[in-house]
């Protein structure tokens, strides 16, 4: 009786790529990718810390200078750019939008995921369809609408359209379908809990990870938004930081160490978020991909 099975078989069985240990080349290419991804950011810092001469050097400067505070100080003291105010504005806009998206999207997501009501499927389909409408198309009319409301030139014009997003509703629905057991909702109902009570004591605790993901993605997108804030806020004393940075670069003679110092300051909050919540952002993007 032969005991050992033929030893060759395991070699024939291919391993999926994710079980194949990465070789030297993989690491090398990935390192190059990282360099490509990180270098513009690093170089933004280099110029933000340098004097004007750094930009007129060949080979180009690649070591940070010592003038960061000088440059930053110049950016903040420019009269018609309102840089300090713009940072505050961006924080307000991004925070309000993020908080509102989290609340309203999780409510709607809960309704679509666990509550029975007439037309829920059709309405959910509608939500998904709105995802495919390019948001720029109604921008002219949106400006007119905001004008009628008297909101152009105020932060309201930037905040209001973003308060609930189709993506957020969709994302929350998927997450709640998968993580909140029906029985838990049912039994809370039997105990006489109202819908809002179920939301507060069962749904909310269960969806904390999803809230983190959606919150980070929303904050980043809102902070970085440029076209609509430019249209409605430019020329006012209430720019967002993106509009203010673009203002730094307007005029006949652009001083790039200032522009990039401003750009760097406006980027730092997001880098901090990526550093702290990178894992969540990665997960959010990857989950969104598989489910859509």
């Amino acid at each position, binding site marked *: 009786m032969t005991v050992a099975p033929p030893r060759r078989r395991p070699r024939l069985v291919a391993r999926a790529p994710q079980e194949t240990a990465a070789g030297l080349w993989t690491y090398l290419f990935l390192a190059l990718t990282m360099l490509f991804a990180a270098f513009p950011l690093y170089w*933004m810092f280099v110029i933000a810390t340098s004097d004007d001469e750094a930009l007129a050097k*060949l080979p180009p400067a690649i070591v940070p200078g010592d003038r960061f505070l000088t440059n930053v100080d110049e950016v903040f003291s420019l009269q018609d750019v309102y840089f300090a105010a713009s940072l505050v504005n961006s924080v307000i806009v991004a925070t309000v939008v993020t908080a509102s998206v989290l609340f309203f999207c999780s409510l709607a997501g809960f309704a679509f995921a666990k*509550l029975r009501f007439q037309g829920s499927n059709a309405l959910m389909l509608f939500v998904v369809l709105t995802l495919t409408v390019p948001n*720029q198309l109604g921008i002219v009319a949106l400006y007119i609408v905001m004008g009628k409301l008297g909101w152009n030139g105020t932060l309201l014009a930037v905040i209001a359209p973003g308060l609930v997003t189709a993506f957020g509703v969709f994302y929350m629905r998927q997450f709640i379908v998968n993580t909140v057991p029906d029985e838990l909702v049912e039994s809370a109902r039997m*105990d006489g809990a109202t819908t809002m009570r179920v939301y507060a004591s069962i749904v909310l605790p269960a969806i904390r990870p999803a809230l983190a993901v959606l919150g980070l993605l929303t904050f980043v997108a809102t902070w970085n938004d440029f076209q609509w804030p430019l249209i409605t806020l430019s020329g006012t004393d209430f720019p967002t930081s*993106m509009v203010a940075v673009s203002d730094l670069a307007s005029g006949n003679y652009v001083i790039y160490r200032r522009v990039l110092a401003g750009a760097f300051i406006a980027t730092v909050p997001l880098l901090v978020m990526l550093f702290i919540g990178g894992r969540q952002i990665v997960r959010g993007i990857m989950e969104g991909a598989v489910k859509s």
Partner: protein
Amino acid sequence: MSTTRAAPAPSSRPAGPERGRSGGDDRRLSWRDRLYRFDMRYMPYLMIAPFFLLFIVFGLFPLLFNAVVSLRNYRLDDPTLPYWAGGENFSRLLGDEDFWNALYNTFGIFLLSSVPQLLLALVVASLLNRKLRAQTWWRVGVLLPYVTPIVASTMVFSVFFSRDFGMANWVLGLFGLGGPDDPIDWRADKLHSWIAIATMVNWKWIGYNALLYLAAMQSIPRDVYEAAAIDGAGPWKQLWRITVPMIQPVVLFTVILSTIGGLQLFTEPMLFDPNAQAATGGPNGEWQTIAQLIYKVGWKDLNLGYAAAMSWALFLIILIVAGVNYLVTNRLSGGQR
């Protein structure tokens, strides 16, 4: 916790003030009944209402109203014009050189950005799909461009692509291209400015798309790769013959996404121009995109009616291109089996 709030028990704690208001026992019951019925029947609608309200006011209505505006004389600087313009805005569009130029630029930049972007994303994703040390670190790393504001990165790239002391020319010079004696002026002609802008777009989105592909790759069943190994397919062949067809839905999704995004390109071409406020995309419109032209017509020339007509044209174009891309990608990525 919540079990103590057993539904109609008269002894329940008077915790909810709106619930416990004094009154006859049966009246209280019916009040509760009504609350319960309201909660079951209408609460869901209340919960989804914010989305629909907001979408109608700031999404759907502007979209429809845009159609009305496009048929009107809507100039911010001249309200005396006749109310309706009929098809004038649209007929003007057909003969507008700026529009066709912008359309040409938009497509040029779109091709130079979307194709390399998605191909490189596939490669990066397949690298990330290996068993890596410090896996999370790599994945977070490729997202650096994704969180960076386009406004900020475009400023950096604008300096990279400057003619005299730009990093791009310097690097090309190392390889014997251009060089300090014959530097490339990245803002002087269409092709070079398109390449510069496409580089910014690619930089921004490769990592993001790579993560989308990676997610799909990881859900491919393992045994699919067995057959390939028996056939003796190497990693490169594996990628094209197995992985890509298997993640086809996500590929289609990214193609649609990059079409919608690419055809609306605004920030990069705006800020690549040292004279950004003019929104002309170069002295002779070398890289002016449609979104940029809409901005210029609407808010620099103050002709909102015409800008609205252009928006509709852009919408149609996006629909057509997204449809065509869908079909083409569908065949390319699925038909190779």
